[in-house]
């Protein structure tokens, strides 16, 4: 019975998308909200029925045979990492509808249908257990986002949507080539065709180091564009700036995580040794991204672009955690995927609410809203603090773990007998330089708050509250969209342990599957990390 849950979670949004498409236009948003909420019900079921004591195993497995002789099937199943990302997706769905409630007046059926379809595609990416289904969903996410930006975006929407599509599509095709190569190589190993991700992961490790390096490069072409990793990030600020609020929320909240999830599941899962080998280089890119994008944020005048670039900076930490390939780093990275979805998603909502009232995102034209919109301002300050990594809120948990993960991840430190070090190719300097990003983040985010929230009230010329049809401060509907995210940020920050405990098992399986060079450790008790664990296979 449980095996129905994932297919139902996938099907419900599509059913409602069709329903919305044939509704009268004025009922579209209501139907969409109901659809999003009902679609969240099976996801709640997943959350409650998931057996957390076997969190590393893929549960709720379901499979449809397609062409067995070719190894083609559509199969799904989730471990706790996928589960939590699906939960995040389901949470952001209704929030997006609430955030678009008054903003989308033209062609609402098109908008909400695609928004619902998007849910299916994203959940599909996280739930997929075979390559075809994964890639179908991965690519399919482009289409709804293309429509959301291209039809419902602002001035430069066409260029933004085309660039978004082409850039990520090209990357994905190269990633596809890498994945196909793995499948081909695996077929030689197994003597039959298989596209099962678990089987492919086991076989991929048997490839030669050169092959692994090439597969790594191909996969990263797809996933690093999505993340986005410096210097492949330039589509993001444009897409974010032009996208409607819901598009930005989905883009920052979930779509970027498809990239980091891809790295986690496929790069780390398939070719971990190549990843460890190239980790220093990739980490340098991530760190450049953290500081470079952070400094660009500092000189932005467009508040939405600022938050968009901040995503580039933030996701650098997430990638750094992945490259640390230890339990803290990977846990931090997975936490980062979740927490960034909450706080940056919320920031885009906040900016959307401001934009709906003032029709500008220029920080020179809208300032000092604290005296006019105290509720909006309180939420804004709260989410900025979450984003800045204030302890007690979500951003801190993930950022801290990513950084300490990078700090520990040094085989040299292990060899030097530091008990808290783990095998890996990074080390203290990586964390120290990336940590400068903490200071830069405080700079640009507080300067942004200093302009938009504090100071004397400045409004665009000719602004009239009555014209927007919205209350001066946030409406109950808008607060309802923000409250779950705010609660998430707080609970996540104070009680991260349930989440950390849930993802510990799959993360540890991933870490133990990496075959590090044995390290001479002074004390025999500290060998666990260096021992080869051939039997255990990563997701």
């Amino acid at each position: 019975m449980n095996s129905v849950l994932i297919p139902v979670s996938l099907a419900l949004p599509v059913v409602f998308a069709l329903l919305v498409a044939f509704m009268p236009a004025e009922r579209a948003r209501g139907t969409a909200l109901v659809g999003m909420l009902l679609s969240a019900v099976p996801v709640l079921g997943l959350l409650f029925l998931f057996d957390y004591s076997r969190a590393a195993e893929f549960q709720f497995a379901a499979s449809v045979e397609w062409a067995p002789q070719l190894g083609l099937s559509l199969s799904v199943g989730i471990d706790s990492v996928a589960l939590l990302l699906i939960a995040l997706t389901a949470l952001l769905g209704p929030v997006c509808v609430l955030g678009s409630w008054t903003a989308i007046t033209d062609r609402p059926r098109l908008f909400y249908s695609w928004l619902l379809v998007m849910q299916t595609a994203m959940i599909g990416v996280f739930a997929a257990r075979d390559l075809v289904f994964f890639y179908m969903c991965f690519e399919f996410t482009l289409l709804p986002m293309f429509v959301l930006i291209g039809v419902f975006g602002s001035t430069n929407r066409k260029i933004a949507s085309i660039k978004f599509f082409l850039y990520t599509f090209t990357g994905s095709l190269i990633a596809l080539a890498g994945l196909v190569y793995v499948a081909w190589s695996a077929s030689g190993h197994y003597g039959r065709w298989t596209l099962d991700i678990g089987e492919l992961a086991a076989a991929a490790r048997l490839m030669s180091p050169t092959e692994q390096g090439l597969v790594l490069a191909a996969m990263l072409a797809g996933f690093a564009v999505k993340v986005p990793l410096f210097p492949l990030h330039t589509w993001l600020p444009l897409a974010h700036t032009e996208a409607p609020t819901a598009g930005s929320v989905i883009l920052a909240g979930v779509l970027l995580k498809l990239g980091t999830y891809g790295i986690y599941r496929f790069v780390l899962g398939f070719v971990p040794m190549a990843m460890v080998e190239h980790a220093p280089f990739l980490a340098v890119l991530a760190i450049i991204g953290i500081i470079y994008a952070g400094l660009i944020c500092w000189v932005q005048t467009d508040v939405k672009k600022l938050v968009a670039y901040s995503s580039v900076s933030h996701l650098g930490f997430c990638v750094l955690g992945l490259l640390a390939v230890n339990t803290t780093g990977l846990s931090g990275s997975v936490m980062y995927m979740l927490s960034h979805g909450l706080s940056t998603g919320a920031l885009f909502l906040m900016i959307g609410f401001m934009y709906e009232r003032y029709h500008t995102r220029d920080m020179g034209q809208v300032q000092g809203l604290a005296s006019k919109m105290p509720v909006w301002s309180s939420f804004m300050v709260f989410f900025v603090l979450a984003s800045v990594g204030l302890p007690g809120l979500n951003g801190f948990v993930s950022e801290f773990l990513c950084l300490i993960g990078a700090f520990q991840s040094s085989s040299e430190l292990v060899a030097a007998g530091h008990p808290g070090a783990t095998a890996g190719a990074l080390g203290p300097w990586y964390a120290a330089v990336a940590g400068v990003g903490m200071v830069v983040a405080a700079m640009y985010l507080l300067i942004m708050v200093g302009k938009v929230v504090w100071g004397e009230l400045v409004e665009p010329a000719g602004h009239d509250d009555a014209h927007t049809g919205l209350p001066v401060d946030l409406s109950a509907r808008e607060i309802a969209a923000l409250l779950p995210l705010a609660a998430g940020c707080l609970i996540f920050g104070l009680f991260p342990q349930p989440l950390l405990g849930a993802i510990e098992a799959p993360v540890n399986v991933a870490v133990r599957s990496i075959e590090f060079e044995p390290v001479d450790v002074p004390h025999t008790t500290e060998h666990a990390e260096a021992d080869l664990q051939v039997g255990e296979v990563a997701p």
Partner: protein
Amino acid sequence: MTGDVILTFAADAPVGVAPWWVMLIPALPMLGVILCTLMAIAGVRSKLPAWVTVGCLGASFVVAVAMLLNHGEGAAVAKAWDWFHISWGDAQGQQFNAIFGFYIDRLTILWMLFVTGLATLIGLYASEYMSHDVGPGYCRFFVAFNLFVFSMACLVMGANMLMLYLGWEGVGLCSYLLIGYYYKKPSAVAAGKKAFIVNRIGDLGLALGVYLTFVHFGTIEYAELFASDKLAGYLEHASHGDFSHIPLAAQVIPMLLMVGAFGKSAQLPLYVWLPDAMEGPTPVSALIHAATMVTAGVFLIARTYPVFQVSEYALPTVAWIGGLTAFFSATIGMAQFDIKRIMAYSTVSQLGYMFAGLGVLTSVGAAAHVFTHAFFKALLFLCCGAVMHGFAGQLDLRKLSGLWRMKGWGIVSITMLVGCLNLAGFPVITSGFWSKDMIMAEAFVRPGMGPVGWLLLITAGLTAYYTFRVFFRVFVGPQEYHPGDELHDDGHGAEHFHPHAPGWAINSVLVILAVLSFVAIPLVALNHGGWVGEMIHGSTAHYEAHAEAGHHGSVWLAGFNPHAVMYYISAVVGIAGILVAYALHLRGRTSAGEAPAAEAFKNALGPVQRWAEHKWYVDELYDFLFRKPLWVLSQIFRYVDMLLVDGLVNTAGWIPSALGGRLRRGQNGVLQSYAASMAGGLALFVVVVLILASRSG
């Protein structure tokens, strides 16, 4: 450091379980946060938030007293929940643990007593001081006020370095929110921002210190860290002056931690945020930026004192930074005219004494000075606040004179005098004298620390001078006042201005604090360190140099023991400073603005005086060295990103369309063509699979 010093610390006793109710100390202020938030939402327009705050914080203080009475020897831990628990193996260091819990020893208790006590009193003061803002602003103020005490409790009571970090950034946040309380004032917003960002630089050092502690010791829980054999082994080496057997990593940890301490406690080179922080309401300046938060750096070093002792250079560095900061900021304080700024620089300077105290190994002296300073500096700020409140924001000492004889200002004047005497280190009858003395004497005892001692001694004279410069200008002399620009809209302008003297809440708090500054004398003075010394001896900050040889080895000035003669020397220096202030600023002064002797003195100093008044142009220097280049770099990045990085992408994207010669069609056409190409991609995938399958099959 010589080899005849034996170090011990008192965490050898097993760590017990603290009673659950110690958690009320942070929980009650958190309750205050919640209640005040609810009142803000409900739109309460009375002084209710203040009374709730005073109630919560007072109750928290009572619990702290109960904790003092209940606590025996050693340390105890109270755990609320597992905050972080990540494990990848069974060995030591293969779990990253941080409980949300509290570590109670005497150092904790000492700190929490004055934090909660002062917070209660200053909350009471603020109930009156902030009364012009009753409404949403009043609620907002007390939300942040309560949150500050909660954060401070986490910082001080936290059971591990991560809890400390939580509190550390939490107090930084409250500081940010409260400095920027008058959020329409650009200078206040800028000051809040500056405080947070400069502190973040320190926080980075602290964070890296925490990481390295974990990597090297395998734990960040205090209870485990202080009990670790590794640390004990290092201390054993260090006690023999043998640092070559202590790994570099262990010696770097305190270097990183102290960066955090310098940021939070406003030491060189990260002190620049604190004077600007005076933009906040005065109760905030008194509580956060004078008495409690800025001593967090001192607490950090005291808490991790054993870790600092295993580094050859850490504590000497702390001593030098402290001594230099004390002297440097005193020179700025001497040349300022804004009395609140003068007090701010004096805070930086006094914090320098505390760091120097830690650096020269008198943790007792440092803690004693934190303790006495908390009372008299809060008192001084609250007196300045009362003046500011009464004279429409006037803080310029050239615009006020002779408050002593004005009606209703007697209590403020007398308590101000008490505060000034303490700060100036007036001999015997002030607690500030005794605590400062311990630090200066010890500086001359420590080998190699003599120059720091001289710096501190000279600074003591300067301190006495600038403190009484304020008192002699503002509180005595001819009566005169000019109101500031924060006139209330009550119909009459500056010409009809009447200063309004403080009411019962402000006056009673001032009196209590003045009394407490005397009560503190026996607590720090009796039996070398007194009660405060006992509290420190029962904690991780305990340090004892058993060997007397160290004293004889560093004879200072013709064979006198510094501990014996320092009382007399510092007494003379202090009184001399007061007399110079009298000669320059009171004798012959005929009006508030005119002090002929001081003018003559100023002219004699030439440009030096002007440089000091402009704070030695440090802000301008930092702007030139860091902010401007970084801003230029950011602009370059911005254009590089637009033109180069994105330009390459656009060029790459242009090539295929140029080759294909296809023109863009309309919106739908584009959509369809991409949908088609995506389907094509999938098809390609399937085709490739099929071909490969047929070949292998």
